[in-house]
């Protein structure tokens, strides 16, 4: 696949992050704290995969082969947020990701849907409506764990702090390609995105004593082509994302 233009890079970054987030959510359909929580994890995984497909399909309009994009890239060609590279270690990781990563994704979608790219303007509102339940889920669980004291509170705080720097760098790219999209009106400027991020997850994070305004994006090792920091998603997740075991059954 050739190096994408700024808009294609942006769409691929959103789509890959949603696909990986769906995989990480799906790991907890069984083994989450209750049956209802597992059902919610399943539903949120399906939401993320559905959103990813809608986003990948936008690339078709930009001249990309969606089959190649979805099913043939190696791990080091994925543009997903680094916080999703490895499986969640525990439930605190899951909860922190629903706030930090899912929250950042929702803000990125707000920005994209509020820009002038017609497909985003028409498709993003439904995604954001579904994301509202993810926000409520994340806020409720995070607040409860943070307020429970002891190990649960310490773990969810540590998990959020571990995910925030790389996720903020992913949400707020400080490079020319992103600047081009802002100038063209396809997405919001960084200051507005950061403001929206504070509005969406700032109060939730504060429940664990995390001040979002004090967190600096981790920009070291930034890869402008993949619109992310160093590293790549684990191979097992990429094999699932590509559908390697189902290749004989693919129907497009």
């Amino acid at each position: 696949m050739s190096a994408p233009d700024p808009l294609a890079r942006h769409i691929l970054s959103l789509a890959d992050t949603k696909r990986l987030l769906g995989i990480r959510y799906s790991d907890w359909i069984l083994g989450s704290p209750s049956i209802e929580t597992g059902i919610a994890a399943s539903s949120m995984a399906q939401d993320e995969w559905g959103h990813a497909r809608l986003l990948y399909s936008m690339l078709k309009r930009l001249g990309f082969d969606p089959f190649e994009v979805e099913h043939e890239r190696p791990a080091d060609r994925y543009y997903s947020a680094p916080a999703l590279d490895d499986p969640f270690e525990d439930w605190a990781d899951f909860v922190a990701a629903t706030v930090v990563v899912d929250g950042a994704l929702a803000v990125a979608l707000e920005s994209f849907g509020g820009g002038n790219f017609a497909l985003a303007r028409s498709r993003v509102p439904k995604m954001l409506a579904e994301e509202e339940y993810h926000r409520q889920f994340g806020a409720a669980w995070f607040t409860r764990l943070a307020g429970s004291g002891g190990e649960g509170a310490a773990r969810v705080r540590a998990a959020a702090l571990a995910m925030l720097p790389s996720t903020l760098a992913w949400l707020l790219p400080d490079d020319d390609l992103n600047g081009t999209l802002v100038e063209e009106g396809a997405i919001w400027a960084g200051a507005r995105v950061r403001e929206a991020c504070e509005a969406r997850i700032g109060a939730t994070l504060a429940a664990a004593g995390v001040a979002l305004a004090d967190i600096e994006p981790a920009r070291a090792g930034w890869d402008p082509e993949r619109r992310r920091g160093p590293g790549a998603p684990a191979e097992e997740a990429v094999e699932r994302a590509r559908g390697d075991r189902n290749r004989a059954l693919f129907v497009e």
Partner: protein
Amino acid sequence: MSGARGGLAESVYEVFARKTRGEPLRHIGYIDAPGDELARVYAWKTYDEENWFEMCVVPRGAVMPVNRTDGPWAANRPGRKDGAG
């Protein structure tokens, strides 16, 4: 009313929904949740097979029996020694 709605212990919430504005709300099931916020999310995510016009959740303990105290609902009220709550 549940006494555990601020902690991690779970309470039962009854789920009601209607498919159209003019249809009566009907009881479609129940979920366990540790609080009102998660009860709303769990209900929507658990019973999302239909395109609901409106869905509501009610803590089981908030539903008061009217005409009898020995009916199935009354028997399952939280706090009853012989009920599941």
